[in-house]
């Protein structure tokens, strides 16, 4: 029995508590978003909120199982789990069902399973393992090849499923490469800027973007007037960036035929229907914005009920929270997420094993990416890309995958003194 209480003592209970808070908030929010008059019980299993309750219970059982198995399993079977993940992606391409134009679901015994959700976890394991195995500790572009391939393979396959949103999530692993020294901060910033500008250019008139950048340059010349050489360099950068923006826009507008544009839009995400998404965004902002400081109260939301914004309980779940619990509620939720992600980073940093650290960073990064894109899109800071809000959005695959992800890390953390 001593080992039993020992086991719980070593678990990070703060993280578990945060997890439980998020999951319960999610369940209640799904109820508020999707309640209908004929099924007013939150335990009505014919409805999404009733089902989510089942998903939560089973997820917790899964979490307990993960905590009770031998920690050695995770590094040992990392590649095997990754392999199974890849096979499931192939299988879903061959035998899966198409939902919203994405062939990414298995329907087994009435339950829809999305393998891609679990592959994030498998990829994190394999990535941690392959970097851990690189005993030379060399950190350069060449040594990045294999880890990058580990990430690229599932991305490719998920793209083939036409589920660009989920594929995009794998970009989160860049954080791991950054932390482990494979890429420099400048490169990261450049990459982020390139993506940012790309999206900005597609969403806005390119002259605004070029104008804005030029204005930014002119302002910086005032501050840098003592360093003409830096100004010169910055000017060159400005020209390069403006050229990039212009080329992106030109290629998109002039060279591509409309149907090819559609393909690109679909490639980015089939949910990026620029008109439709604009409407959804508008509705979403109205819902959140009308929440005020304290919100309209539980089940009192007017915008999220009968609204024709799709995915009330899944991708746009934050609307319900923003509307019914206001700024106060949004503050609590965002704080909980940031707290959880920062805590995972801090826990990752205290690991003795590189494997555990990389795995922790993967977890925090994937969570962060979902958080960034999902909440960002509902408040109009990020284009509409259909990925769920972890622990909150309705859906068994997502909840299970993130629970396994989190609890595996908690298990690794509880054994940090034994792993090297």
């Amino acid at each position, binding site marked *: 029995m001593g080992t039993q209480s020992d086991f719980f003592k070593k678990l990070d209970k703060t993280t578990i508590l945060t997890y439980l808070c998020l999951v319960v908030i999610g369940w209640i929010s799904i109820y508020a978003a999707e309640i209908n008059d004929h099924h007013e019980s939150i335990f009505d299993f014919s409805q999404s909120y009733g089902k989510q309750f089942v998903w939560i219970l089973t997820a917790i059982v899964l979490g307990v199982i993960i905590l009770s198995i031998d920690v050695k399993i995770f590094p040992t079977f990392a590649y095997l789990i990754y392999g199974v993940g890849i096979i499931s992606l192939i299988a879903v391409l061959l035998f899966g069902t198409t939902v919203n134009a994405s062939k990414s679901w298995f329907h087994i015994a009435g339950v829809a399973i999305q393998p891609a959700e679990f592959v994030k976890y498998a990829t994190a394991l394999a990535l941690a393992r392959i970097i851990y195995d690189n005993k030379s500790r060399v950190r350069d572009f060449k040594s990045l090849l294999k880890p990058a391939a580990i990430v690229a393979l599932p991305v490719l396959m998920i793209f083939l499923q036409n589920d660009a949103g989920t594929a995009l999530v794998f970009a989160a692993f860049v*954080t791991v490469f950054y932390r482990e020294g494979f890429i420099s901060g400048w490169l990261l910033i450049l990459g982020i800027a390139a993506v940012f500008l790309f999206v900005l250019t597609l969403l806005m008139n390119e002259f605004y973007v070029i104008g804005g950048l030029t204005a930014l340059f002119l302002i910086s010349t005032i501050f840098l007037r003592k360093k003409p050489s830096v100004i010169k360099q910055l000017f060159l950068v400005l020209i390069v960036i403006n050229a990039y923006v212009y080329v992106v826009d030109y290629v998109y507008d002039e060279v591509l035929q409309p149907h090819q544009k559609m393909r690109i839009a679909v490639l980015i995400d089939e949910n990026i229907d620029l008109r439709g998404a604009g409407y959804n965004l508008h509705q979403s902002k*109205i819902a959140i*914005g009308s929440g005020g400081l304290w919100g309209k109260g539980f089940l009192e939301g007017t915008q999220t009920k*009968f609204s*024709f914004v799709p995915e009330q309980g899944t991708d746009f779940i934050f609307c319900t929270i923003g509307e019914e619990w206001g700024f106060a509620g949004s503050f609590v939720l965002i*704080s909980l*997420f940031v707290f959880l992600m*920062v805590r995972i980073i801090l826990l990752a940093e205290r690991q003795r094993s590189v494997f555990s650290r990389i795995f922790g960073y993967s977890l925090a990064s994937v969570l962060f990416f979902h958080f960034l894109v999902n909440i960002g899109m509902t*408040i109009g800071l990020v284009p509409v890309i259909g990925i769920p809000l972890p622990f909150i959005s309705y859906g068994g695959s997502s909840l299970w995958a993130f629970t396994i992800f989190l609890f595996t890390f908690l298990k690794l953390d509880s054994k940090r003194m034994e792993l090297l």
Partner: protein
Amino acid sequence: MIVRSSQSDVFSRRKTAVILFFIIIGVIFLIRLYYIQMIDHRYKIYASSNVQRVITDYAARGLIYDRNGELLVYNEPYYDLMVIPRQVSNIDTLEFISLLGITREQFENRIQAATRYSRFKASVFERQISKDTYAYLQEKLFRFPGFYVQPRTLRKYPYAMAAHLFGYVGEAGPSVIENDPYYRPGDYIGISGIEKHYEEILRGHKGTRIVLVDALNRDIGPFQDGRYDTLAVTGTDLYTSLDYKLQLYGERLMQNKRGSIVAIEPSSGEILALITSPGYDPNLLVGRIRSQNYRNLQADTLKPLFNRALMANYPPGSVFKVANFLVGLQEGGINNHSRYSCPGFYRSGGITVRCRSHPQPVNVLSAIQYSCNTFSCIQFRNTLELPRFGSMQEALTTWRNHLMSMGFGRRFNSDLPYELSGLLGSADYYDRIYGTRGWRALTVISLAIGQGEIGTTPLQLANLAVTVANRGYYYTPHIVKAIETPDNLNPEFLERHYTTIDSVHFEIMAEAMYETVEAGTGRFSRIPDIPFGGKTGTVQNPHGENHSAFIAFAPFDNPKIAISVIVENAGGGAAWAAPISSLMIEKYLTREVKRAWFEQRILDAEF
């Protein structure tokens, strides 16, 4: 670069950048949220002008016409006052209740009931508000957020007739809503008659509109330019086979009497008139007055809700001799040349069936003409005792099968409401009563004259007249002639049903029925210039005065109408049912009745 150990790795400072990035994004989100939730008030204004209301556009049901295009059933608009409880706020209750003429308590109760159903969906607050109230409300409605007026339609019948045939419309009940996803609470559905049978054709398709309503409860236009709206599709019209003048006339003839008239066009099976008396005004079972009136009709001792034409199970009496003779001729129990003398009764094995005096001797023709019971019993017994049949069971089964081919003992499964099958005992039925060897032809001899363990509906009797008129076949009697246009014939009932009797035997019966009207029991009801065939019947009624029955088809050559009439407790068939048939035939074929005194006698009669 080379990393020596994981603990002291040179990149650990990068955690600060990552953490900072997480926190910065979180802060950016919060700033953004602060802006849209606290600073920018546009969204609150949008939200209040963004209340979506789902409005159902109820499709008007299809119209119902008679065979000549006369409008029999149409729709009248009315208005329901609806409420969405969660949108009700800050209303001047006092003014509102005085507007509607309800008490404060009623107001509270109704709001509570609506809330119990749903806070988000509309409930009916007041059904069928008057046009005046509607006009008045329309102006004031903006002061009562959460309330709006839903236009609907109700059935209206210009002629107070054929209520049973039309059936009625009411709100779909819980079990219907459970089983059919089309129906929602408050939807209307055909509950009986044509309205029920042709529900899917008549109902059309309701539409839904989503409109945006502002804080002042004003409709500010369609949601997303109507992208999610569906148009209501008006129901399809039906052309019944009824001749409304004949129907009205029949109902008039049957006033103050109990019984029924069924008139069918032999060449198509189309029901020209179907009268059950007493009936009721179909306008009674419409809208908010329906339930009260329905209770009243249910309590009525004359049972006006009971459709005698389709459900009454009378022994047919002598009119059934026609059917029996057909079986006898077909099986060879009698033939064209059979002759018997009638001593005024049939007596055998201690059983006596009385007859009345008539010319002697009788053959097939004169036995029908004078409705001779003796001949009927002899032929029935001869037929059942034919040596061909190995047993009574076999004989009776053969007899029964012939009758079923004429439409007796079973339902037609037509488009008529609540049709019953009548009673035609099977061999098993008699085995159960008398034991397998306990019965013989004499046991069931009363069947020979259409009495005893036999029940037929007036519809079945009319169909017998149809079958004789057609010399051996019939079409399923039906009420809806055409769908959508008068030429688009109802495809359900185009099939001819042949009986198992050869048409030559029908020729004999047709001839016999002609003689009946010309110089037999029905001669009193002859129509000048219109030769027709008929058969009287007097149904013995142990509970009171006999029922008067008659079947006929007219004109004799190329018949246009076949009819059955039963008048309960009126006495002999020749006295009442035959004259009524005669009048109906005259009315239908000549469009007017010239025999005023003859008509007046019927109109004055009360039973």
